[in-house]
């Protein structure tokens, strides 16, 4: 034990007096956390989004709709049946001309593989247009385009079987708005309301313009609101397809944009659903009280029952008739009670379903919170491997290995004392990092004390790697290069850069042969997932076992070298 302490003290002095090591070990936590702080300084800033609202597109244009369906013949039949006179056109230009001159209010292009489209135009009334559109929507999914060319070759690669064209201003329900909380919102208004705080939305005149902004990098994604978006949200049997264009060149950015868009679109959906439910409930009450039932003035059931009571009173001398009326009164009473019960029941479910999104740690996590455990674990790997390897090789470089081999000090003391010292140093370093992250940058750690335990175990195992590396290097420079060569692939293998679940099974298997994998998992477990000692004990044990195994390997290699 005397040897252990002597070596321990000696290595401590070596670290303190070696400026390079000292810089790496002392400055590093501040450097890393400083960079992290700077990187996430602006974290939580709204995602910049572009918005194109086709309802608001310039007047006088043509609305193009494409549909993928196998019911083209049926749809064509119904269109011909509905129209008084169907005209055939030879080309897109002819059809467009017929639309703009008012000769046709709607044009159908039927696309057949390998052939040029057939163009049918007809002058339809507004109701007929709406019915036709409904037919198509029922038979297929429909998307909005800004030109025929676009509908002909959609970006997703899907082929349209049918393209519809009509004048923008005749598009039914265009520009319709919805009342939410006593305020009226049109399509872009809805998006603005629900995206506030999450996204910073810029409106563009056309999809082209928005795509240009996306390419320039001014925005991270573009949302294209289809025509009559609000109507489609409100209509019971409608699904509104909302094309979202995301810049996928940067996966992380794309992921952020997608998550936030999904988030607020689902809030839009919830808001509308709630409003629809309110309307249904109000309608049910109207059935009892009388009034405006979705546009029709109705006499309430309550009034009908009163009327029946009056009739029954007037029929006092005609008991057989009064009895018949009595049956009507009973029915009205039952129906009124049922409706009221149903409405009350629906009112209950119409309460806003608020998603309370939170992490298992009990607090919503930011990107910064999520980054820190991996950051600390990577720094442990890097400095641990380096520190272990350098401490061993310095001894070799100074010629002291031969000397020490002649004393009573065995290889275990030689290697083990370094492992312990380096563990203390790297632990202290990482603890400083953790404290900085929590105190200076407000990073979340649900169980900081347990995190320290994981950090200690992780340091122990990573330094072991350095001790083994050192057996193959004779100079500090070689040890440093080898540490880089070894650490780098390890970092990739642990899922810190690329999710493990996305890797083939042999890579996942390999990842479990790397202590860092357990370190990152355990550290994010105790910091972010609220795991307790019992949860991480297994992984901490594995880390310690790795350390002990590597220590044994390191001592064995050191013994072999000293014998040579």
């Amino acid at each position: 034990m005397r040897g252990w302490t002597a070596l321990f003290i000696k290595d401590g002095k070596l670290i303190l007096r070696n400026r390079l090591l000292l810089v790496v070990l002392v400055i590093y936590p501040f450097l890393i956390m400083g960079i992290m702080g700077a990187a996430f300084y602006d974290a939580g800033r709204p995602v910049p989004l572009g918005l194109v609202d086709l309802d608001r597109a310039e007047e006088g244009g043509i609305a193009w709709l494409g549909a993928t369906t196998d019911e083209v013949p049926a749809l064509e039949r119904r269109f011909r049946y509905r129209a008084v006179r169907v005209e055939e056109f030879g080309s897109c230009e002819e059809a467009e001309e017929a639309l703009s001159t008012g000769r046709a209010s709607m044009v159908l292009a039927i696309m057949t593989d390998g052939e040029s489209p057939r163009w049918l135009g007809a002058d339809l009334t507004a109701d007929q247009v709406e019915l036709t559109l409904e037919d198509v929507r029922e038979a297929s999914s429909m998307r909005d385009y800004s030109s025929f060319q676009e509908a002909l070759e959609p970006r997703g690669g899907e082929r349209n079987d049918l393209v519809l064209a009509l004048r923008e201003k005749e598009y039914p329900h265009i520009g319709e708005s919805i009342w939410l909380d006593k305020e009226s919102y049109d399509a872009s208004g809805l998006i603005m309301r629900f995206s506030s705080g999450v996204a910073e939305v810029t409106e563009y005149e056309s999809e082209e313009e928005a795509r240009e902004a996306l390419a320039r990098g001014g925005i991270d994604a573009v949302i294209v609101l289809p025509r009559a978006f609000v109507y489609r949200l409100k209509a019971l049997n409608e699904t509104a397809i909302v094309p979202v264009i995301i810049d996928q060149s940067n996966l992380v950015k794309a992921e952020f944009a997608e998550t936030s868009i999904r988030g607020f679109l689902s809030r839009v959906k919830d808001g509308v659903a709630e409003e629809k439910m309110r309307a249904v409930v109000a309608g049910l009450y109207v059935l009892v009280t009388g009034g405006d039932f979705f546009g029709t003035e109705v006499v309430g059931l309550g009034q009908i029952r009163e009327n029946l009571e009056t009739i029954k009173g007037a029929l006092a001398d005609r008991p057989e008739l009064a009895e018949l009326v009595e049956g009507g009164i009973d029915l009205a009473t039952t129906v009124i009670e049922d409706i009221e019960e149903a409405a009350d029941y629906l009112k209950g479910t119409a309460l806003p379903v608020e998603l309370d999104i939170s992490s298992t740690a009990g607090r919503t996590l930011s990107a910064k919170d999520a980054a820190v455990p991996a950051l600390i674990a990577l720094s442990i790997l890097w400095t641990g491997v380096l520190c272990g390897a350098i401490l061993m090789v310095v001894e070799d470089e100074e010629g002291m290995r031969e000397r020490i081999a002649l004393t009573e000090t065995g290889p275990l003391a030689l290697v083990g004392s370094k492992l312990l010292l380096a563990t203390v140093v790297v632990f202290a370093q990482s603890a400083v990092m953790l404290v900085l992250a929590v105190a200076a940058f407000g990073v979340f750690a649900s169980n900081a004390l347990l995190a320290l335990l994981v950090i200690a175990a992780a340091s122990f195992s990573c330094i072991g790697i350095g001790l083994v590396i050192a057996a193959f290097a004779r100079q500090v420079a070689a040890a440093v290069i080898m540490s880089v060569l070894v650490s780098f692939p390890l970092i990739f293998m642990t899922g810190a850069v690329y999710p493990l679940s996305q890797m083939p099974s042999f890579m996942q298997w390999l990842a479990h042969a790397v202590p860092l994998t357990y370190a990152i998992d355990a550290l994010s477990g105790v910091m972010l997932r609220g795991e307790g000692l019992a949860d991480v004990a297994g992984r901490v044990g594995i880390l310690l076992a790795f350390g002990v195994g590597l220590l044994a390997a390191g001592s064995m290699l050191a013994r072999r070298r000293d014998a040579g």
Partner: protein
Amino acid sequence: MISLLGVDKEYDGLRALSGVSLSIEEGEIFGLIGPNGAGKTTLIRILSGRMDPTRGEILFQGEKVEARHPGYRSRIGLVPQDPACYGRLTARENLGLMARLYGMGREEAVPRVEELLSWSGLMEHADRQARHFSRGMLQRLSLAMGMVHSPPVIFMDEPTSGLDPEARSSLWELISRLSGEGKTVLVTTHNMEEADHICSRIAILVKGRVREVGSPREIKGLLGADRLELRLENGAEGALSSVCGRLGLAWRREGDLYVVTGENIPGKLPEVASGLAGSLRDLHYREVTLEDAFLRFMREVGE
């Protein structure tokens, strides 16, 4: 004290030592002389128990030595070929560390370190980091580090290589003092002057074989002798021959030079001179050094 019996060492096929048999007596300074690659370091490594010989054995005070035998290692001290110490530790810390590694307690280690600091003349530099030391100081520190545990035997591998004359002589003085304290010292060198100066006995190692063993004087006598170089007038060979015959000396001709060799030439010089009388043009007496002897020996063995 230490005997080597037919020691062979092979490094994957390369034979570094063959059939080395030597006996090193207690209290002597034994010099192992040989050119680079002769196997000196290999022999030291075997002696210091760092590795086993391929064949043969080593006896320490009559006991057979096994490599990594802990009891043996604590009885020997090693001064490696290159000064070994921690550059970022001070002289005192380096010595203190060795003391602790040899199992001394603090109360034992501290006075020992102070003793060694003054013994090696490093006291005034005791608290300087060793990386700032000159090579001479490093060698003295390295020697002191090898002696921390007061071993009766010390092996030194080329301790003076790369030192300036002053540093070298101060190290010689330390080594001589060691033997005065009753230590047995085995020192390797390729510096003949040094061996001549401090060693009580010498072995010449060439290509892993011991060629000669003996005191420097014996080696010199064996390998060469003092020589008298003469330049004579023509026709004086007869006179030279008769003088040499009378005094028991040998002579030979090397070019236009006559070389006379034999015992006690300085004492016989007046007789030689008077015997040659007028035909002596020039006379030069050269005392043989170990270096001369060694170089001549190396020429003879074809190195």
